[in-house]
């Protein structure tokens, strides 16, 4: 081996070592940075039960998917025979035993400060809409079920709530105020969203929210509040039980 060749060989060896060392140094630095970034994210302070940056991300998702939401897109309708006879019950928050259903009225808070008190009979006198759709729980299961009630948009028209419907959100809570939801107006005004008083053509069972619940196919079950006591309108987001516990506020499907 000539001296020149030997030098060249040595230079190659040196280059291999140098390039390997630099690359792995950068690799490990990035690895450490990645891990530090993960630790940072995981230990960020809470915003309603979830790390702040993730809450920000969920809000961005809401903006993106809220902007492509179309009221014209409806949940698939199923024939009556497909509807479950035994309908799954999930969640009993806000369903306290001391509920006085005989004196129940739906309280609607108007913009001008008035409160409407509407009885079940008055609601049942409004045009009925039936919805048979695949009810989706945020847990991941779904079930085709059959509901009947008055379209929220019809209800708004009938009770002259057009001014209120110009606001951003509808808030609802159970009579005991233990369970509460907030829903964007667009989703509320979709044609399948009903103030529901019937399941499988009968009165709602108590555990399904008798006398009145919300059925809103474009949202997960958590937004389909049972036993509505008070309904109100608001521009800022109304408080929402599960959104305060780490879940996505929008929860749209």
């Amino acid at each position, binding site marked *: *081996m000539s001296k020149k060749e030997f030098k060249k*060989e040595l230079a*190659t*060896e040196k*280059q*291999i070592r140098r*390039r*390997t060392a*630099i*690359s*792995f140094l950068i*690799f490990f630095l*990035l690895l450490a940075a*990645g891990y530090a970034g*993960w630790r940072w994210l995981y230990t960020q302070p809470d915003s309603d*039960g*979830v*790390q702040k*940056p*993730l*809450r920000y*991300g*969920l809000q961005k*998702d809401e903006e993106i*998917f809220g902007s*492509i*939401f*179309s009221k014209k*897109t*409806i*949940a*698939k309708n199923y024939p009556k025979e497909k509807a479950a006879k035994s309908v799954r019950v999930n969640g009993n928050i806000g369903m306290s035993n001391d509920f006085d259903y005989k004196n129940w009225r739906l309280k609607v808070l108007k913009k001008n400060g008035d409160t409407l008190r509407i009885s079940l009979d008055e609601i049942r006198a409004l045009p009925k809409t039936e919805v048979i759709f*695949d009810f*989706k*729980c*945020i*847990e*991941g*299961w*779904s079930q085709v079920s059959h509901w009947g009630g008055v379209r929220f948009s019809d209800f708004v028209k009938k009770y002259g709530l057009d001014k209120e419907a110009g606001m951003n959100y509808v808030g609802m809570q159970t009579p005991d105020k233990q369970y509460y939801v907030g829903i964007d107006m667009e989703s509320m005004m979709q044609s399948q969203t009903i103030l529901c008083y019937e399941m499988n053509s009968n009165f709602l069972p108590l555990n399904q929210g008798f006398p009145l619940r919300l059925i809103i*196919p*474009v949202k997960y079950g958590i937004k389909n509040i049972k036993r509505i006591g008070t309904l109100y309108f608001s521009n800022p987001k109304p408080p929402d039980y*599960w959104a305060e*516990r*780490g*879940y*996505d506020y929008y929860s*749209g*499907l």
Partner: protein
Amino acid sequence: MKTKRIVKKHPLAIRWFHWVNFPVLTIMIWSGVLIYWANDVYRLGWGDKTILKFFPDSFNKALHIPFKLAEGMAFHFVFMWAFLLNGFFYVLYTVISGEWRYLMPDKNSFGEAWQVILHDLHIKKYTPPQLKYNAAQRIAYTSIIIMGFGSIITGIAIYKPIQFGWLCAICGGYEAARIEHFILMIGYVFFFVVHIIQVILAGWNNFRGMVAGFDVEEVEKRNSTNEPV
């Protein structure tokens, strides 16, 4: 007489996409399992007979899976963007740079892949000639892209089954999309296991290629007429 020389292997961009995807996919799988736990109905078996439950209680317990649906959803629906964008730019890069030529199976790949597998299992000595990737790798690395695409499609179908009702219908409905999404996840885990074994068996030079980007080749000095690429 042999001498070493440095040859380019993986472009910097490919190495970035690869090493970004690894933690991102890990987070997607982990957060996905947190979500799945809330309705963990899948199993392998028939009738009342269950061979394997997804997932066994011991598995859930060991990995702190239970009661983290909200956390899982928050991570899943934030990191999905990283997964989507990284995958999108990877595919875009392979198309523009021409790297896809090394990655896509050609007409011989499907026949040759068997030879590669038989060789890797030490059943046969013969290895088919290859460029950057062998036939089995070409099929695997292209399949994983198709799987990624599948995860995005089935993912959107579960995430927005009404707004993207047509996509949900293509997947065979809401529940079918959820099963497909789950099976793809199992596919990634399977890919990962095989991938790690292969990387260990292939050795240092190969692994360094994915970090530093170059390969070291030993060539006969006198006969070497090839210029380094």
